[in-house]
């Protein structure tokens, strides 16, 4: 199947799964999410096993908390990304928003609680504003998301360099203490918060519209879904989450770097795909994106404990990404047996 961002009405929709059993129906509809859970559990077991084999002990609170803390920026970036992807779009500017947020946090926040709070709000507003620009260009400018966000990505990367020309600056210790304390499970609270936001958003009309728009824009419009407003809101959400991820990245790395967010453009997409959200839109769950972020972080840990040369890391990540995406497709076809011949053209 060639990759087209929008589905034209002539193309047939995938037939609904046979409703023979409840379990069958659930798993067929949420193939990606089920696979993401399986992958997550498998990676966790692998990580624990390797850790135990290397250190002859199970990871303690410190290791687990740092793992969660290191995952938090990606979780927020990926959750934001999933909103854009669910509308059958893509947000490549995630990395750029994180660059700017990270640079701002490291260079402007100061140490006073008032300053920290003010800049946190300002950075979140900046992320929302960037998302608004993306969304307006996609929805009202009728431009392809990949193009729009590629353009804003370049602009944001330039902006980040302007804010923080050299890596440096320090994030206020209070911020690190609040968001990424290795001795207290605040990271877990942030993960819970991300999941809670998803659960709530999913049950609002906006959450429903996102799926409608991602599945079939023309039908959604005919049904009275405000397609454009939904698109704009999806990118605003993605931008806001990305700026939050940038702040958390600054908190975990305790310093600023105008390029440190760049990788998150790709890893957030990878997390979303591994989490079973379809890049064709309309299928998947934000919880999958959160799981995908965990899987990717655990993968890095597993490679570390397997003594893989860090230079080979991109190789395994790339391979893993492709295999996970292929597995999702194949499992989907397998669960919707009888569609195999027709589904694959």
């Amino acid at each position, binding site marked *: *199947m*060639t*990759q*087209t*961002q*929008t589905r034209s009405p*002539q*193309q047939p929709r995938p037939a609904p799964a046979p409703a023979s059993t409840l379990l069958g129906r659930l798993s067929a509809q949420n193939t990606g999410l089920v696979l993401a859970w399986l992958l997550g559990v498998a990676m966790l077991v692998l990580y624990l096993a390797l850790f135990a084999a290397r250190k002859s002990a199970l990871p303690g609170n410190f290791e687990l908390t740092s793992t969660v803390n290191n995952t938090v920026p990606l979780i927020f970036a990926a959750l934001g990304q999933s909103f854009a992807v669910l509308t059958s779009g*893509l947000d490549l500017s995630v990395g750029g928003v994180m660059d700017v947020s990270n640079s701002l946090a490291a260079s402007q926040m100061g140490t006073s609680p008032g300053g920290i709070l003010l800049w946190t709000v300002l950075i979140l507003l900046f992320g929302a504003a960037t998302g608004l620009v993306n969304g307006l*260009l996609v*929805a009202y*400018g*009728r*431009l*392809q998301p*990949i*193009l729009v966000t*590629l*353009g*804003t*990505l*370049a*602009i*944001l*990367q*330039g*902006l980040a*360099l*302007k804010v923080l*020309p050299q890596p440096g600056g320090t994030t206020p210790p209070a911020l690190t203490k609040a968001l990424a304390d290795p001795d207290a499970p605040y990271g877990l609270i942030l993960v819970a918060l991300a999941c809670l936001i998803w659960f709530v958003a999913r049950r609002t009309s906006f959450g429903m519209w996102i799926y409608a728009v991602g599945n079939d*824009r*023309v039908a959604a*419009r005919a049904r009275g879904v405000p*397609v454009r407003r939904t*698109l704009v809101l999806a990118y605003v959400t993605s931008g806001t989450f990305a700026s939050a991820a940038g702040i958390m990245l600054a908190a975990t790395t305790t310093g600023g770097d105008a390029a440190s967010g760049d990788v998150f453009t*790709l890893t957030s*997409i*990878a997390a979303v*795909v591994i989490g079973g959200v379809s*890049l*064709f839109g309309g299928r998947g769950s934000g919880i999958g994106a959160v799981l995908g972020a965990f899987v990717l972080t655990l993968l890095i840990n597993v490679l570390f404990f397997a003594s893989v*040369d860090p*230079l*080979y*890391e*991109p*190789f*395994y*990540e*790339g*391979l*893993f*990404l*492709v295999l996970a*995406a*292929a597995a999702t*497709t*194949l499992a989907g076809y397998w669960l919707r047996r009888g569609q195999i011949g027709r589904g*694959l*053209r």
Partner: protein
Amino acid sequence: MSTVEHPERGGFALLSRMKPDRRLGLYALAAAIVVFVVGQLIQPGFASASGVKTVLVVASFVGLVAAGQTLVVLIGGIDLSVPWMMNSMAVLLTTAAEGSSLRAAWVVPVVLVAGALLGAVNGLGVAVLAVPAVVMTLGMNGVLQGLTLGLTGGFTCASCGSSAPPVLAGAVNGSVLGIPGQLIIVLLVAVVMTVLLSWTSFGRRIYATGTNPRASALAGVNVRALTIALYALSGLFAALAGILLTAYGGKATLGMGDPYLFQSIAAVVIGGVSILGGRGHYLGALAGSVTLTALISVLLAKDMPDYGRDMVYGVAVLGIALLYGRSERDEA
């Protein structure tokens, strides 16, 4: 799609009678000329013969990568594996040829075939496993990056022979009748691409598939084979660009391909190739690479700092996309 002719006013009748592909290609060409004129006004000597030649040579590398990118974009795909495809093939060239011109005779074809095969793997993933093109080529980029970094140990050391074979450097940097060898190669590619897209049934199949994959499959196009072939060609062109860039600079360095992802996509868009597929021509993308490179050169000549360059890039892509990259009004 936009085969419906839009009635236009006044002296633009000729332009409006043109096929959209050709019109957008002309716009890209006009944009390139405008950039040269503005460059000359800002920096006298910018549009001199030697100045133009320099820009064209630099643009030709983008143009080569854009050839492959155009092909996959024409069927609604995208190739994000370009940076490390170029880089890994460049490293393969220098390490296998060991700086010897004799070895280059068989190493160059091997590298080109390797690029095509790796590209075909991209195509297989997209066409057979139904992995979205973004994911497949992103994964391939990671795989190639990891392999290149891992196998070279992080840097191309002096003893691993990272320098280009002299015969290649001679071919690229030398000139025939005052035209640099590099430009001749790109001109040949442009001719081949034009023939392929405009005068062969292969080209017609590409446009048909890009416009409506299902209809063209029903009309007897083997969409899977076509997809695999186009991604293979994209890999081939990226490998060729990697070889020539190594020959041009004399060395293969890690990270040398990184700028070419953004630039190849930007060139394709500026050249009027629709990112949705089915519309556009390589000649437009080629003009787009010249526009983009000329723009960068003007900014460099003005001592524009890095951040300003990035921002101008972004604004240029968005502005040009808003001018003529918009989709039809049917969906929202």
